[in-house]
């Protein structure tokens, strides 16, 4: 009888952020569908009430079904039967529950049987599901591939595939190959047009494909024979009902065991081209990946929440030296720091989700009518913010998730190392978050633009100018000093105009920016709800030591330093 939504008041806090009213109005086109669909909202309050009630169901299913199944799903995992994936029994139960509750296709438009929810409540559902079972969220969360179909596919394809997603079809994004991982330009899966059959046929191998045997897959393939780079790649949609793909192998993984990671063999698999040829990687996969990265950010937050709760519970119950271990400074510092990091990671998640909501909604509106000048400017502003916040959030939140999982096991001591407690699974599940959909190192590569173009700094200055309560003023003063440190460090590095030197310090600079941003967000949260003040204070202490440390590292760093790190391969 647990409810993972109502037992966590922080979720509702983020759901009701002031910007939500604008997002909902835009998303609902001023509530024009009120009388067209019996489940469309009448006004903002009505929409908020709907989000709240639907998330209540998500929380209930997570607490009562998905979380209790997590242990058996982790133990049993999926298997291959007759070249196809059979999920663990618990996974099937989870999918059935979510399907019947109508929680697939949450963000799709109503005309495709979706709920037309903004990204924020959808991502909140992902946050909640991840806390219940980090492996399962992959199967459920791949529904955001549908967003890419909705953005780029033809109307006919949308009508064909999207209602199926809303009805519960699962999805996959088939990108990676044995020789094309981080470097997707090397994709070789062949797409050839068959004049006789009047269809594209796919041939080749994909590897490490999450939920690779899902009902509908987006596949990146080389449509332009003889090309070698990303410009020869196109995006296809493959329908499992048509056959032509077999699952050759399931990976044996450290964590997220319930989520099948497949090696797929395509043999004349029929598929439809999505959008334009040659834009597969450069346009569509980037959109797909950005959606997926936001999803991994949500997964990281959900797993962090699970880790924090397990740690807190255990520390309160475990008695040593005649008292609960949470009474020892070494332990309570860990617990409180975990909560601060969790809050920081989550507030960054919803800030990013709001940016994505603003920009994507304007983008969809721009397909219906010409945007006003102000609207166009807003769209561009939020697109830029979404672009620099998405990798920042995914990168930092997944690292925080790993830190929290580590600390949660540590607090359990020897017991945490045993399979008897959920933290053991959480620790294994957490590990993937900083690896897939681009490692943290690659998120830094994407995020560094936000540093070098001044995008983060401009946004930090905006936070700095926002109204807060006088009690929080001293926190802002600290952050202003730290922002100066950041600015100087960036200036020094960027002025060298040396790409290797910039790359060398990139992570430090991205971390500095990210920590200042999360700190500001926590201060702003505290201004809206005093219960976040403790986390704001604690997190700013962390930010201070991190920023000062990194600033000092950069201040005393000279070009020759690189030589001390380079590895001689001769």
């Amino acid at each position, binding site marked *: 009888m647990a409810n993972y939504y109502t037992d966590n008041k922080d979720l509702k806090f983020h759901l009701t952020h002031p910007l939500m009213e604008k997002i909902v109005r835009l998303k609902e086109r001023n509530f024009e569908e009120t009388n067209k669909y019996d*489940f469309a909202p009448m006004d903002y309050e009505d929409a908020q009430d709907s989000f709240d009630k639907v998330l209540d169901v998500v929380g209930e299913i997570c607490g009562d079904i998905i979380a209790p199944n997590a242990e058996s799903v982790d133990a049993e995992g999926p298997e291959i039967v007759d070249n196809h994936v059979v999920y663990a029994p618990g996974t099937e139960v989870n999918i059935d529950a979510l399907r019947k509750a*109508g929680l697939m296709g949450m963000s799709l438009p109503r005309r495709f049987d979706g709920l037309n929810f903004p990204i924020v409540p959808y991502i909140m559902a992902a946050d909640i599901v991840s806390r219940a079972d980090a492996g399962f969220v992959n199967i459920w969360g791949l529904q955001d591939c549908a967003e890419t179909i909705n953005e780029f596919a033809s109307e006919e394809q949308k009508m064909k595939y999207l209602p199926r997603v809303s009805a519960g079809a699962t999805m996959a994004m088939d990108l990676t190959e044995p020789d094309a991982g981080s470097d997707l330009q090397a994709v070789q899966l062949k797409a050839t047009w068959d004049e006789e059959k009047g269809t594209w046929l796919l041939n080749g191998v994909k590897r490490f494909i999450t939920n690779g045997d899902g009902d509908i897959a987006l596949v990146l393939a080389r449509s332009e024979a003889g090309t070698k780079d990303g410009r020869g790649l196109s995006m296809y949609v493959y329908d499992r009902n048509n056959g032509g793909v077999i699952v050759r192998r399931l990976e044996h993984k450290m964590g997220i065991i319930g989520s099948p990671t497949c090696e797929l063999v395509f043999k004349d698999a029929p598929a439809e081209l999505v959008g334009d040829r040659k834009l597969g990687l450069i346009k569509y996969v980037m959109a797909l990946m950005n959606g997926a990265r936001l999803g991994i950010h949500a997964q990281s937050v959900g797993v962090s929440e699970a880790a924090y709760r397990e740690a807190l519970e255990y520390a309160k119950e475990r008695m040593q030296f005649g008292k609960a271990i949470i009474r020892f400074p070494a332990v309570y510092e860990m617990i409180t720091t975990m909560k601060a990091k969790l809050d920081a990671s989550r507030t960054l998640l919803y800030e990013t989700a709001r940016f994505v909501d603003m920009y994507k909604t304007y983008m969809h509106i721009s397909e219906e009518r010409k945007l006003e000048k102000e609207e166009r400017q807003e769209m561009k502003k939020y697109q830029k913010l979404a672009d620099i916040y998405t990798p920042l959030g995914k990168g930092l939140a997944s690292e925080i998730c790993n830190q929290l999982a580590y600390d949660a096991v540590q607090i359990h001591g020897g017991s945490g190392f045993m399979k008897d407690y959920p933290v053991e699974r959480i620790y294994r599940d957490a590990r993937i978050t900083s690896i897939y959909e681009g490692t943290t190192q690659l998120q830094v590569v994407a995020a560094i633009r936000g540093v070098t173009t001044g995008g983060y700094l401009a946004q930090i200055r905006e936070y700095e100018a926002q109204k807060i309560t006088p009690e929080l003023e001293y926190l802002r003063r600290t952050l202003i000093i730290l922002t100066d440190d950041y600015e100087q460090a960036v200036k020094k590095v960027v002025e060298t105009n040396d790409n290797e030197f910039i790359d060398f310090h990139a992570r430090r600079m991205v971390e500095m920016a990210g920590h200042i941003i999360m700190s500001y967000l926590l201060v702003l949260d505290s201004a809206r709800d005093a219960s976040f003040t403790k986390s704001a204070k604690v997190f700013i202490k962390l930010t201070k030591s991190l920023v000062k440390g990194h600033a000092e590292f950069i201040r005393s760093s000279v070009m020759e330093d690189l030589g001390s790190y380079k590895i001689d391969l001769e």
Partner: protein
Amino acid sequence: MKGFKIIVLAKQVPDTRNVGKDAMKADGTVNRAALPAIFNPEDLNALEQALRIKDKFPGSTITVLTMGPGRAAEIIREGLFRGADDGILLTDRAFAGSDTLATSYAISQTLKKYGKFDMIIAGRQAIDGDTAQVGPQVAEKMGLPQVTYAEEIQAIENGKITIKRRLERGVEVVKCSLPLVITVNGSAPECRARNAKLIMKYKHAKTVTELQVANDDYIQLYNDRPYLNIKEWTVQDIEVNMEELGLTGSPTKVKKVENVVLQSKEAKVITSSDDDINQLMTELIENHTIG
């Protein structure tokens, strides 16, 4: 094919599964304020059986019938959120204090007024009273066959329904003709969760009384969308003998409520022979369990 017309009997009950110190008042009655009001768990099992029939036989309709105070309308909304088509709240001061006999009388009179249906599905018993009497009494009063302890409805063919029953020492599969009353055991599958679209569709559904007290910005809706009006029936809407309702219609009297510690470890098996029953009655009267 055309579907079936199904009535689900449901009750709003205090959540006695999480009883705290203040669950009972000093006078021995249930302190309802201290316990959250919930959909009686086995009635949810019953609703799930009805929903499965609806899944299998499209065109079937489910009406949730509940008797209780005004706030029991929540049970009907909960039913709508899960896939029921409509509901009736039977509510009147005249029903207050009803025991199972008076309750089953009121419900069966309502059903007679309701018209034709193919089956009535109810939970085996409610967690507040644990009597398991209302379902069977309704069947008796309506002159319908009853199948109790149902766990799975296996088939409906040619006007006959096949039901698996969960008994003390095993299962039994029985066939029965429609219409009938089925009471569902807690071992039957759990009810599905509320559905997102149905929640959004029906969340404004209200009874007439709720509409009067609600400060509702959406009042226009109730004319535009008839399905948002939950039927609320009082004694005026059904034909009843007032004597048989409420406290006056309830032979059950609560004499005293006390905490008991269960001491007897062994169960006693009593056969249905006259001797055994006589013996049992004597015992129960002697120790003042009854009488």
